[in-house]
């Protein structure tokens, strides 16, 4: 097992390097003189020259890349000029908030999605299946940002059950129940699409598995139906569900950008959008690399979970 994890970690290195190259290449697309583009056309020549030096733009691209990479490896992602603070500090702080939001949404969509999919498959063509199928269709079609806005309108403005936005109440907040109250709506809004996708896939994976011979064997043994479904069948179906969970984690992380804007959640997505609008390139660059790297690591965890579940995978 340890060997397998190590192998996966090593295989992640080229991917991580590739990510930095891609991000670097995209940033090299900035048309014209990047420093002018960043500072705007009213910048003084001295400022432009200084920024060029800071960004190392007087050097050839390859050198610049390696300097940038080397700095990042030492934890120096540069400084955000708009916030005037180290990029890494800002990103880590914001990423924490995103992690709370996206992590909750991910757990929610995994549990609800699998639950709905299994029930749907076990009651195929019954009313529960039809209801779930319709809900799933609605869920995967509704834009999360629109859903979030409608939730605010209904649950925060009309019913006054939950706070409109933010992560903590401004006065007297900050404790865990306060966080939960603020988290409920954004996490649900974020989870909806992925729940639909996971439910859909779980349903078809279960239907596939339920036709297999080993299910007939379990029934022939006299295993109670509930256990056939939730034990034998689900266990086998998980083999095809787990990789999808990994992919959906990426979509949840992506959707978090919208949800953070709608609910004014102080996460990394909102930070990125603000940074783009302010042309704070170093912050964008650092944020993208950091989050992408975290996502790669998460996918290793998914692979390891998969290998624990399926003894047929050579570890």
């Amino acid at each position, binding site marked *: 097992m340890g060997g397998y994890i190590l192998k996966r970690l090593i295989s992640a290195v080229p991917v991580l390097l590739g990510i930095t190259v891609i991000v670097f290449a995209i940033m090299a697309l900035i048309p014209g003189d990047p420093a002018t583009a960043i500072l705007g056309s009213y910048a003084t020549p001295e400022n432009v020259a200084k920024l060029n030096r800071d960004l190392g733009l007087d050097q050839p691209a390859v050198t610049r890349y390696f300097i940038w990479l080397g700095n990042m490896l030492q934890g120096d992602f540069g400084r955000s000029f708009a916030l005037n603070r180290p990029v890494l500090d800002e990103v880590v702080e914001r990423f924490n908030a995103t992690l709370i939001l996206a992590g909750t949404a991910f757990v929610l969509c995994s549990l609800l999605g699998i639950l709905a999919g299994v029930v749907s498959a076990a009651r195929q063509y019954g009313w529960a299946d039809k209801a779930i199928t319709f809900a799933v269709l609605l869920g995967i079609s509704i834009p999360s940002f629109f859903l979030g806005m409608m939730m605010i*309108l209904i649950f925060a403005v009309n019913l006054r059950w939950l706070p409109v936005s933010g992560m903590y109440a401004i006065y007297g907040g900050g404790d865990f129940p306060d966080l939960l109250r603020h988290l409920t709506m954004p996490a649900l809004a974020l989870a909806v699409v992925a729940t639909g996708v996971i439910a859909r896939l779980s349903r078809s994976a279960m239907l596939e598995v339920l036709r297999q011979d080993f299910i007939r064997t379990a029934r022939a043994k006299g295993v109670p139906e509930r256990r056939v479904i939730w034990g034998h069948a689900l266990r086998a179906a998980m*083999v095809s569900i787990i990789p999808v969970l990994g992919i959906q984690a990426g979509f949840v992380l*992506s959707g978090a950008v919208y949800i953070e804007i709608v609910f004014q959640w102080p996460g990394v997505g909102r930070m990125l959008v603000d940074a783009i609008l302010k042309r704070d390139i170093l912050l964008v660059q650092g944020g993208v690399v950091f989050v992408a790297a975290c996502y790669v690591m998460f996918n290793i965890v998914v692979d390891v979970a998969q290998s624990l579940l399926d003894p047929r995978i050579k570890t």
Partner: protein
Amino acid sequence: MTRFLKLLIRNRLAALGGAVILAVVVLALITPLLPLQAPNVTNTADRFIRPFSPGHLLGTDHLGRDLLSRLLWGTRLSLAVGASAAVIAAVIGAAVGIVAGYFGGRIDNVIMRLVDMLMAFPYILLALAIVAALGPGLMNALIAVAAVNVPFFARNIRGITVGIAGREFVDAARLAGMGHGRIILFEILPNVVPVIVIAMSTTIGWMILETAGLSFLGLGSQPPQADLGSMLGEARAALIAAPHTSVVPGAMILAIVMGINLLGDGVRDALDPRLRSGALTRPMPATSVRRETVPAPQGGGVLQLADLETRFEIGPRIYRAVNKVSLEVAPGECLGIIGESGSGKSVTALSIMGLVASPPGVITGGAAYYRGDDLIGAPYRRLRSLRGDRIAYIFQDPQATLHPLYRVGDQLAEAIRVHHSISRAEAEDRAIDLLTAVRIPNAESRARAYPHELSGGMRQRVGIAMAMANDPDIIIADEPTTALDVTVQAQILSLLDDLRRERGLAIIFITHDFGVVAQLCDRVAVMYAGRIVEEGPTGTVLDAPAHPYTRRLIACVPELGQGRRRLEAIPGLPPAVDRLPAGCAFAPRCDKARDACTAGDIALERAGARAVRCLFPEETLT
């Protein structure tokens, strides 16, 4: 094609989705012709007019602009941007995929590595990075969304291309001296285009959503130009004061995406042949039963089938897999059921405990008496308590019939624990005893193995151990040795025989091999096209077969017990059981057939221990 369209239209939801999309597209196309107010003319005096007001059907927004007009112009823009992004992504992705798939080797390697890396990003990060570099704007958002989706197309198209590039006509073109460019254009591309179009149409909704998302964030279309996303983004500030300004564009996005999804699902279902045949339905816990009368038990035996009828109902077709089969087996006896594949022997066996996949299987008549109790139509709880406890099954292919992800010891222990409340440790000990009893060496360590770690013979021993777990009265073995080689087969047979003698088991042994029957069974029943055509003690049937079919079956066994053999030596095929001829089903293959044979139903004539269903039997039974 017409068939496909019919299927699509029959799917009402897909048709609804298609209608919605059609309506939206038509509206978007004729927007410039409609008598609408100018979408960008502000009129701060008329801010936030509610919907259904005179002059403003959908009301106005925060600058007093007419929402209906803005909605239609925004829809037009969103559709155009989403569709362009889809086309751009598809064209570039397909080009990359075709190049990678066609040339293979190092080019393929490098390209696919790059694709993998791009796919390692959560998609929005990449899109944001691109917008960050190019600057906010609708064109740049379009480029970002298209670029992010290129890897998806590249990977799909590459897979298809690899398949096509290996086919003969491509080789032929190459031999004919065609250049790479021409081969790609004239041989590969025509075959890939349908896939590209389908992939594109399924992603178009997604692209509309993504571009709308970027606009919503303020990174796409810039004022005063507005697509649906930026309309929603601008309306957000007035969400509480004037919710209709948000609901209008949001509902439109929802309608478009939902319409595309419905249509896409319909297309997929219509294209997927598995759904058409109903094969993707899951079997229920017990076979459905739909019978009018219940025959009374006749005769004895621990298990007795009376006029059992099982059908498969697939669409309008009805397959009579088991057609009034009556059989019985006594304790300590081994009854063989022999027949070609499709003769209904396995379905007979599975019907007893309600294990026929249902749908499409239905038991439409007859009874199965276990110690006087009818099992057909017994409540699920009763059936479950007997399954594996009193009546156990051994199936054909233990590779497929054991759960691949559970250790074999656990699967055995479970078989015991679902019927007896004993501790886990006790059940595990019992499992090891069982493995020893079926002569598995190192039972203790084998119990911890997964099925894929065992050989075929070992797995089948596990299957037998599982059937023995609760000391059943009856074992129904459905071709348990077919997948095994000859020596292993002989071992398994002698193991079963020993167990039967030691424990007084009744065995029903399903096979297509007379050699196996001769080795193990006391009595044999021969099935053809769902019916029993001959029955009797193994020795006499083998020595003097009465039914022409039986005689032919025996004739094509060169030497008894010699491994797997199919019964192909008989010319012709067994009839499809959805179109059974009148009279003797074997008549088309029988060289003794006369007109009388196909005139009407032929009864199973009994004489002593034997029975035959033939007007002109080979032997007169006495």
